[in-house]
């Protein structure tokens, strides 16, 4: 290229990119703090890719046995798997390795936190309604994949904690009626703890298959968002057919990029300063070793809670098990929760709103008291089971007997959601009545803000 060629013209004349670029620079983002939650998930994923790439350069997915030597005295000379040994090496001897591993782990936790909060924002504001049902379904799928990817990730290291987690995953796979036994031994390359191909399979799933699917679905999700444009909260000048907010260039792009680095900064600070999953302390996994007080990463807490809460029922015929117990807590329970989430747009249309129209203006939770009540009931159901997952910790810190908590929780999971429905619905109705109170003068006319060029604060849009 000669120095006189204008690079923008060069690209535009070959790809016709200037038109789309001009449009993209003017793309309008409506503003509300809760719209940053989805971005937070995206940026946590960026940090996961960056740190994960670094880690993949050092980790060796192999269950071959080796004698480990390194700076951690209690394990120096221990027989460990190559996978666990390389996890120790990259934590303890690779420069910056521990920072990267811990940042990666924190980012995985935040990734699921951000998706969950984003989901809550979406369901309570009715953002899943037409025309966004498909965007929403892709988002729910992303949550499921994010949980799976996190689980596979911390299962890779072959330390005691990951082995115990895998045993539970294996038992849940085995519990599938009919196909469980075959499925479990297929996935694990044999009976638990698995054949030599198992850890390499986990590795390829964690570093290639799942991230590729997640990245593709994120792309699809964002493309769908752009097709429909963002939803927005009601406000002055905001209508179903328009979108009011900041154009991408320059202010929004700079702030969003700032948000990316803010998320990355917090994750790196956590990764450097707050210890997480110190695998050298857990030691290598052997099937006959277990540790009391082991807790999974937070996003599996609801599943361990369900497995623990379930009474010891099993379906059996002629002295043979047909449905093993982990099926209820490990398959049926998450099946109900994700089934509910996938069905929500249809349920909402049939039971709560009865309409087929497009909705680009978001509801407040109070605008649809029955929807908000049902969502609150589901939330309370899952959160209660989640907290019961740490009932053993509650016993140790507060001395509330485990058995008592078990029986209380078994009753509460049915009573509390019903109560939540009633209370939240009434709360929403009360808020709506308060909105329409004569003292609020709902019939008063809204005065359009004066349009001036020197002050922004007077426009109703900022905030």
């Amino acid at each position, binding site marked *: 290229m000669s120095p006189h060629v204008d690079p923008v013209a060069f690209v535009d004349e070959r790809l016709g990119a200037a038109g789309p670029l001009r449009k993209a620079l003017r793309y309008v983002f409506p503003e509300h703090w809760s719209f940053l939650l989805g971005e937070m998930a995206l940026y946590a994923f960026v940090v996961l890719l960056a740190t994960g790439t670094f880690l993949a350069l050092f980790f060796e997915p192999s269950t071959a046995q080796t004698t480990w030597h390194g700076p951690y005295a209690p394990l120096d000379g221990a027989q460990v798997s190559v996978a666990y040994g390389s996890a120790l090496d990259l934590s303890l001897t690779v420069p910056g390795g521990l920072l990267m591993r811990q940042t990666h782990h924190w980012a995985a936790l935040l990734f699921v936190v951000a998706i969950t909060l984003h989901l809550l924002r979406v369901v309570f504001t009715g953002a899943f309604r037409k025309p966004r049902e498909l965007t929403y379904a892709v988002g729910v799928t992303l949550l499921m994949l994010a949980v799976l990817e996190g689980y596979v990730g911390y299962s890779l290291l072959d330390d005691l904690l990951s082995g115990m987690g895998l045993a539970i995953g294996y038992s849940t796979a085995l519990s599938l009626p009919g196909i469980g036994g075959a499925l479990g031994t297929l996935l694990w390359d*044999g009976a638990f703890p698995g054949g030599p191909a198992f850890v390499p399979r986990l590795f390829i799933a964690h570093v290639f298959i799942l991230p590729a699917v997640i990245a593709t679905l994120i792309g699809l999700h964002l493309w769908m968002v752009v097709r429909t444009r963002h939803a927005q909260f009601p406000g002055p000048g905001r209508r179903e057919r328009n979108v009011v907010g900041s154009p991408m260039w320059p202010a929004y792009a700079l702030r969003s990029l700032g948000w990316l*680095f803010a998320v990355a900064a917090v994750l790196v600070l956590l990764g450097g300063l707050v210890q997480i999953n110190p695998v050298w302390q857990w030691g290598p996994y052997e099937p006959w070793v*277990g540790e009391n007080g082991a807790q999974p990463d937070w996003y599996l807490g609801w599943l361990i809670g369900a497995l623990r809460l379930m009474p010891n029922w099993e379906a059996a015929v002629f002295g043979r098990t047909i449905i093993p117990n982990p099926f209820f807590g490990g398959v049926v329970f998450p099946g109900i929760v994700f089934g509910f989430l996938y069905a929500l747009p249809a349920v909402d249309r049939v039971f709560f709103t009865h309409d087929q129209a497009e909705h680009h203006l978001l509801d407040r939770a109070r605008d649809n008291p029955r929807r908000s009540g049902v969502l609150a009931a589901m939330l309370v159901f899952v959160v209660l089971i989640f907290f019961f997952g740490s009932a053993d910790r509650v016993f140790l810190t507060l001395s509330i007997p485990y058995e008592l908590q078990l029986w209380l929780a078994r009753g509460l999971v049915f009573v509390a959601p019903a109560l939540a429905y009633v209370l939240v619905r009434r709360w929403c109705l009360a808020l709506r009545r308060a909105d329409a109170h004569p003292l609020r003068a709902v019939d008063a006319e809204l005065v359009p803000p004066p349009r001036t060029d020197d002050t922004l604060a007077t426009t109703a849009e900022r905030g």
Partner: protein
Amino acid sequence: MRRLLWRVLELLAILRGVVRAAREPPADERDDDGIDPSCRVTPSSPGAERALAVLLVLAGLGLAAFGVLIAVDADPRLLGAVLGGGLACLAAALIVAGLRIVPQEVAVEERPPLGDERARAAALEQLRGGTEGVSRRRLIVGAAGAAGTGLAAAAVLPITALGPGAHVLDESPWRAGVALVDEDGQPIGADAVPVGSFATAFPAGADRRELGSPVVVVHVDPRTLDLPAERRTWAPEGLLAFSKICTHAGCAVSLFRYPLYEPTSDAPALVCPCHYSTFDVRRAAKVTLGPAGRPLPQLPLRIDARRRLVAGGPLSGSVGPAWWGTQRG
């Protein structure tokens, strides 16, 4: 007469619709409050620009320092603080620039309409046009179904090559006469496990990592045993052995609860730390709490001539987590 009535009703319905349509503004304008929120402000703030410059320089220093520190293999806490600090400065700089320096604008964009009936009809027409002149439509669809089924089978069935299948699940190395050894491979003597304690044991000469291998040996007062009649001889001198793999979710049953004061405490039990399934050892590992659906399989024990523990037979049932068709015994 009836038809006439219908006509009148129809006409009324149409008129009602027309009147309603005339009264109500179209959907686009119904929510139009007449406010145009768009505006554009160019802030001019030398103070913010100075702050931006300072933050950018700090970010550069922090990020460069991280590069240097990683080269000298500094403490991970220092690395995290420096990199995180640098990124935080960069984030602050971008946010200051985005809020206080560049033009601030509120824009209004009309949403592009979604769904175009005419385009849809044309697209379907195009698709249908693709089969113009085909006469044996059913035959071809049926044959294509056969090909599709074959393709699906060819795509899915290779997963059976991934593993051996469920028949490997029921394997265990325990047989009559197999000696119990500890983690170092040393035989376990009958006197090595005092009353109230427990030990992990493996079958001599077998693969320990197999789920069917590890057992836990516990010792209780033989007078308190409450075993089924056919297992009376399985616990010589009150020594009992059970599979160490939980029948619920496959974790190692690694807690032994032994009462300190018998009259007020619960019976001796093995407890799994994953979901707290509790197995009463005196009653052949009957489940007394938690989600496990069946007892731990018991290993019959014998004490040989040299007072060593030896298996008196195979385990009493399937080891570990259950699957479709697991014997419950």
